[in-house]
């Protein structure tokens, strides 16, 4: 069975990541931060799951675990049926073709010294698949036309929105089956954001991509995602269909989060639910 046949593209089981805290001088116990604490979820083929939560909740750590920029402390990560959680670096190269990531910062995720051509060529070269055609196609598909006009420019010559499109092109050029997008539009201007979000939705359709969309913005998550998972302090507190979670949140944290989101409508009245969290 090839990865393309499975209904579940991504399956996380009891994923945990602990970071050691600096040891106090005379203590014998090692303390840990539970950045990701025993989370489990699945994403079906072709769906977009939104991973939402506030800063420090573990969503970015989860994203990095899925692309193996970090090694899990325990748990399983099944991508296309294979568990990559325990794989050693040497064996990961094969799987890197299937999993790609789009980063948050359009200014930092492109090497300033490489041309756009070289940036997009890197994954192809690494996977021994170099083909100029593919680079042309990738640029066209993300709306950077004509491709020849962009190939030999440098990142600093492009706008934030264009750079993010290059980042998307780079992620898709090796035909991954699963993409992790880590807050891909939060550093873009609002009027540019819509364009990039719509582009991602269109690409998901044309390429039948499975996506984990990490964001702190619930409104964007609602717009982009089929399902939403809410994280808090390393744990998964709620998961379900996007509209359901937004309209009928079950967990108290989700309710608090939703009630805090500002609405672009002066007439909206919201119930404020204050969480007794560390405020003072």
């Amino acid at each position, binding site marked *: 069975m090839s990865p393309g046949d499975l209904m579940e593209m991504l399956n996380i089981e009891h994923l945990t990541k602990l970071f050691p805290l600096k040891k106090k001088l005379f203590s014998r116990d090692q303390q840990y931060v539970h950045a990701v604490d025993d989370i489990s979820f699945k994403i079906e083929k072709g769906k977009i799951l939104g991973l939402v939560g506030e800063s420090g909740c573990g969503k970015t750590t989860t994203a990095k675990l899925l692309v193996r920029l970090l090694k899990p402390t325990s748990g399983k990560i099944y991508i296309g049926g294979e568990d990559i959680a325990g794989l050693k670096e040497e064996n990961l190269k094969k799987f890197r073709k299937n999993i790609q990531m789009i980063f948050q910062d359009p200014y930092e995720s492109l090497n300033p010294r490489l041309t756009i051509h070289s940036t997009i060529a890197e994954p192809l070269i690494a996977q021994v698949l170099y083909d100029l055609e593919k680079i042309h196609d990738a640029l066209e598909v993300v709306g950077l036309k004509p491709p020849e006009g962009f190939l030999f420019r440098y990142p600093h010559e492009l706008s934030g929105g264009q750079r993010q499109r290059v980042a998307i092109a780079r992620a898709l050029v090796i035909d991954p089956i699963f993409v992790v997008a880590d807050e891909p539009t939060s550093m873009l*201007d609002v009027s540019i954001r819509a364009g990039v979000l719509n582009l991602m939705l269109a690409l998901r359709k044309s390429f039948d991509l499975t996506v984990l969309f990490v964001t702190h913005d619930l409104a964007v998550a609602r*717009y982009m995602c089929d399902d939403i998972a809410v994280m808090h302090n390393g744990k998964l507190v709620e998961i379900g269909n996007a509209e359901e979670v937004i309209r009928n949140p079950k967990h108290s944290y989700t309710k608090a989060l939703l009630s805090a989101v500002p609405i672009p409508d002066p007439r909206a009245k919201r119930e404020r639910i204050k969480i007794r969290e560390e405020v003072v």
Partner: protein
Amino acid sequence: MDTVLEIKNLGMSYETTEGSVSAVDNVSFRIMNGEAMGLVGESGCGKTSLGMCIMKLLPENAKITNGEIIFDGEDIVPKTEDEMRMIRWKGVSMIFQAAMNALNPVYKVGDQIIEAIVAHDKIKKEEAREKVRDLYRLVGLSPERMENYPHEYSGGMRQRAIIAMALACDPKFIIADEPTTALDVIVQDEIIDEIKNIQKKLNMIMMYISHDISVIAETCDKIGVMYAGNFIEYADTFALFDNPLHPYTKALMSSFPSIEGPKKELKPVPGEPPNLLNPPRGCRFYPRCSYAEEICRKERPEFVESESGHFLACHRVI
């Protein structure tokens, strides 16, 4: 007096190695007693520059090229730095973006605010200390926290401390420049609430600068929309949302997804904001406007009253 702040035809530019950047161009509006005005726009639209103009906290290479800023009956544009020092913090105060940078890491937070008060008001340190305690309670911080250093505060706490500092000298006017951008949504919600309550309680006027129209919708009575250094629309909040007139405002409204209401398709605005080194001669939104016509390319539209209380700079709509 009803009008506390009036801006008339304000223009400001920066000198860069590549030439002069026209950051604020021909801006006029006024804020009345007790009002909270929102200033919304994207990066590079001039909203932060406008805020800096009013505080006269301009960098070396920037200068106000024309216009008046009439605060409390006086035009502050010609005032000297010494005169401005008296007005700042007392008359007009500012809550900066990226609050972490506004606090000195080697001094206790409480002491920093006390310093600010003592520098402006002729009161004893002990009185100032009492005042800071009251301020802390006002912004939702425990007064014992006055003894801590900035790094011992969380992001939300630091922002509250910055608000306390901005209020320390009982200003008449507060400019809040993206005060919650770096904060989580729940903390943001609390801070926005806090600011709104304080504004009403102390009857101050406020200018709230943000790129986030949702936040502005919740906090402000009037909204001014800026694009590429120009004011392109100004209206009462409800009026603006019920009936946005300028094509850019309409485009901006449909770029914000919401968690309420039916899911609507976001419509992106094609193109990029203009290079302010060489702004287009006519309407600055012309290249990206779907309603544009010849006259838009040639002539800058005037900022005039289109309906009662609703101002607009657009050839097509007026």
